[in-house]
C-alpha cells in the first residue's frame, strides 16, 4: 500500500476532526479493551503463557535458519512449494508468476497484512486480475478504496451507515440498514467469488516446522473458503512466523484470540499442509508459500530483535491512547499504533517516519498487554535515540534539550530557575489555578488549559513540611 507516513501530522489532525471516525473509534474501548481484560482475568495461566510464548519466540529467532530449513523441507515433502522473497518487489514478482501460470482471472484473498506490505493488490490489479478481499472488514474497505486502519479489524473506522452506503453502491440492491442484512448480503455476493476464483491468497499466522503447516486464525471462515475452493492456494507470511512444533503452537492459540478480541478462541484455526492428496475430492491442486524478509533479517541481532516476536494481535493499538484518538490511517502505512511505529521506520527507513515514534506518550500500556512481552516503549525510545544520533531531531527541539540539559546538570541553577518559573506562572494564572494560553507554546494550550502552580516549587513545599516537623 501507498506510503503516507511523512504526512502523519496532517493526517492526525484530520482524523481528530473526522466525526465518523471518532464515533467508530469510541466503540473500540468498550469492545476489545474490556473483553481482553476479562479474558485475561478468567485464565489463571495467562501471564505464565505470555512468558512461555516470548521464550519460544526467542528460541526460534536464535535458530531461525534451522527452523526455516525444517519447515521448508516439511512443506516440500507434502508437495508444496516454498518461495523466499527478499523484499516487496521480489514477492510481487513471485506471486504474479504463479497467477500467470495458473491462468488466473479472478483472485480471492483472505486477510493478509504481509500482502499489504507487498502492495500486492495494486500489482495484481495492474496486471488485469480481478482481486476480491473476502474478510468482511477488508471487503468493506476495498469497496471504499481505502487501506486497512487496524491489523485485525481493518474497517474499524467505518460506521454501519457508511457500510450501508458502500454496499448499496456496489451491489445494485436496495440499501440495507440492518447489520444482519448487511452481513448476509456480503455473504451472498462473495460466495460466488469463492467458487469461481482460480487463485486464493491467505496470510499465515504461524508456520509449523514439525508438519510443514501454515496456520490461519479467523472468525468468519473466509480464509477457509478462499483456500479450499481455488485451484491454487498461495500463503503469504513473514520469515519470522515459523515455530518448532504443534505443542509450541498450542501456547500461542491460548493467548492470540484472548489478546486480540478477548475471545477464548476464535471460530476457526486452520492448518494447511500442501495441495490435495491422492483420493481427495476437494482442496487446492497447488500450494505455495511466499516467505517475506523485507527488513526482518536485519532486525536479528539488533536492538530491535524483540520486535520479531510480534504475533500481530493488535492489542497494543487497542490500548494505545494515541491510536484511540487518531485511528490507523494517520500512521500512513500497513502497521499502525505502537507496533507499527516501531516496524515502519525499520522496514521503510528513517526518512519520512520521524513522527511515528514521537507520537507516543510512553505510557506503557502497549507493553503491559503485549502477549509476547515486546518492550514497545523501549523500542520506540531507541528509535528516537537513533533519530537524535542521525541528527534528524528538529533544530529548535535540539537546542531546547541542550539548554535543559545544561540547567538540569546544575542543581542550584535548576532550582533557581524553577523558583522563578513557578512564580511567573502563578502570577500569570492570577489565582485561577490554570492558564488558558501559553505565550511561547500556544499549541499546547490550543485544546486544553495548563494547570498553574500555586507559587512555590515542590522542593520548597517539601522543605517547609520537613521543617514543620
Amino acid at each position, binding site marked *: 500500500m501507498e506510503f503516507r507516513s511523512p504526512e502523519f501530522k496532517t493526517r492526525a489532525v484530520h482524523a481528530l476532526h473526522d466525526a465518523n471516525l471518532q464515533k467508530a473509534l469510541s*466503540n473500540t474501548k468498550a469492545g476489545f479493551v474490556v473483553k481482553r481484560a476479562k479474558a485475561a482475568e478468567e485464565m489463571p495461566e495467562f501471564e505464565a*503463557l505470555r512468558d*512461555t510464548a516470548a521464550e519460544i519466540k526467542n528460541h526460534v529467532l*536464535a535458530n*531461525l535458519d*534451522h*527452523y*526455516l530449513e525444517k519447515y521448508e523441507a516439511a512443506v516440500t515433502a507434502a508437495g508444496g512449494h516454498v518461495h*523466499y*522473497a527478499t523484499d516487496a518487489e521480489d514477492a510481487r514478482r513471485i506471486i504474479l508468476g504463479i497467477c500467470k501460470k495458473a491462468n488466473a482471472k479472478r483472485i480471492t484473498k483472505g486477510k493478509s497484512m504481509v500482502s499489504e506490505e507487498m502492495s500486492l493488490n495494486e500489482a495484481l490489479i495492474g496486471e488485469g486480475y480481478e482481486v476480491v478481499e473476502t474478510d*468482511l472488514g477488508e471487503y*468493506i474497505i476495498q469497496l471504499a478504496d481505502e487501506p486497512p486502519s487496524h491489523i485485525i*479489524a481493518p474497517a*474499524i473506522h467505518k*460506521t*454501519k451507515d457508511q457500510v450501508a452506503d458502500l454496499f448499496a453502491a456496489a451491489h445494485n440492491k436496495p440499501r440495507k440498514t440492518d*447489520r444482519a442484512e448487511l*452481513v*448476509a448480503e*456480503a*455473504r451472498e455476493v462473495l*460466495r460466488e467469488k*469463492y*467458487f469461481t476464483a482460480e487463485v486464493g491468497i491467505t496470510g499465515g499466522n504461524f508456520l509449523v516446522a*514439525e508438519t*510443514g*503447516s501454515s496456520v490461519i486464525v479467523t*472468525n*468468519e471462515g*473466509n480464509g*477457509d*473458503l478462499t483456500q479450499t475452493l481455488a485451484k491454487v492456494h498461495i500463503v503469504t507470511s513473514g520469515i519470522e512466523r515459523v515455530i*518448532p*512444533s*504443534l*505443542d*509450541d503452537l*498450542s*501456547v500461542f*492459540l*491460548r493467548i492470540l484470540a484472548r489478546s486480540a478480541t478477548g475471545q*477464548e*478462541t476464535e*471460530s476457526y*484455526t*486452520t*492448518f*494447511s*499442509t500442501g495441495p*490435495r*492428496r491422492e*483420493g*481427495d475430492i*476437494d*482442496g487446492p491442486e497447488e500450494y505455495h508459500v511466499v*516467505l517475506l*524478509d523485507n527488513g526482518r533479517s536485519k*532486525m*536479528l*541481532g539488533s536492538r530491535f530483535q524483540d520486535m520479531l516476536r510480534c504475533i500481530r494481535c493488535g492489542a497494543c493499538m487497542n490500548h494505545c491512547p494515541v491510536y484511540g484518538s487518531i485511528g490507523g490511517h494517520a500512521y500512513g502505512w500497513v502497521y499502525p499504533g505502537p507496533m507499527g511505529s516501531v516496524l515502519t521506520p525499520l522496514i521503510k527507513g528513517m526518512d519520512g517516519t520521524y513522527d511515528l515514534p514521537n507520537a507516543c506518550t510512553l505510557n506503557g500500556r502497549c507493553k503491559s498487554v503485549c502477549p509476547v512481552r515486546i518492550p514497545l516503549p523501549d523500542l520506540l525510545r531507541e528509535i528516537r535515540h537513533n533519530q537524535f544520533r542521525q541528527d534528524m531531531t528538529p533544530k529548535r527541539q535540539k537546542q531546547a534539550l541542550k539548554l535543559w540539559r545544561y540547567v538540569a546538570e546544575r542543581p542550584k541553577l535548576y532550582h533557581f530557575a524553577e523558583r522563578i518559573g513557578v512564580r511567573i506562572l502563578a502570577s500569570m494564572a492570577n489565582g485561577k489555578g490554570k492558564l488558558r494560553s501559553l505565550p511561547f507554546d500556544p499549541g499546547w494550550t490550543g485544546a486544553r488549559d495548563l494547570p498553574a502552580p500555586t507559587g512555590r516549587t515542590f522542593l520548597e513545599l517539601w522543605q517547609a513540611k520537613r521543617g514543620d516537623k
Partner: protein
Amino acid sequence: MSSRDTIFKAIRQGLGRGPLDDAARKQLDARIANPPQHIRATVDDADLVARFAQRFESRSGTTERIASLADVPAAVAALAESYAIAPSAVVGTALGELAWPEGWQIDHGAATIDVMLGVSLAWRGIAETGSILMLSGPDRPITHNFVPETHVVVLPVEHIVRHYEDCWVALRERGQGAPRAMNFISGPSRTGDVEQTIELGAHGPRRMHVLILG
C-alpha cells in the same frame, strides 16, 4: 545469489554466526520430535463431555446427545425440519452407511454452492475450549465444513480430549504426518467487522450442531 541464499546469509549475519553445527542441529531436531510440555490451561472438570458442551454452546453452537450412529439420520432430519431446511445433505463417507429417511437426498461429493446442509464426523473434540478438530481426507471432504449454511458434526464421546496437546499425541500416533487440512472449529462463523457487533454466518455455517455420540 538466490533470494533464499540472501535471506539465510542475512539471518546468520544478524545472529553473528555461520550455519549451525551437527550437534546443535541434532538438539533442535530432538526438540521438534520431543517437544517440551508447556503450561496449559487448567481443565480439572471430571466430566469432559459436559465441559465440551458448555464451552461449545457458549459461542452459539448447539449440542445433543445420541446413543448410536444409527440415530444420526433421525437427529439430522429433526433439525432440518425445525429450521425448514430441504431434505438434502452432503455427508462424508467416514460416517459409514447410514439409513436415511425416505425422501432424503444424500451426496458424498464436494459441497457445491447451493448445498445447505453438511454432516461430518469429527476427529476429536477438545474440552478445554469446546472445539472440534476436523481432518481432511477422501472420506472427510473439507468443503462440507465450510460451504453449507448448517453444519452437523458427529463427535464420539471417546474422542473428547482435555487439551489441544492430546490431539497432537493422537495425530503422531496416527503416523501419517499432518493431513492436507486440519480445522479447529469452535462454533458458527461470525464477524464483528460492522461496528464490533457480532453477527453469525459471515461466510461459513450460520448454524452448528454437534451430535455427541455415546
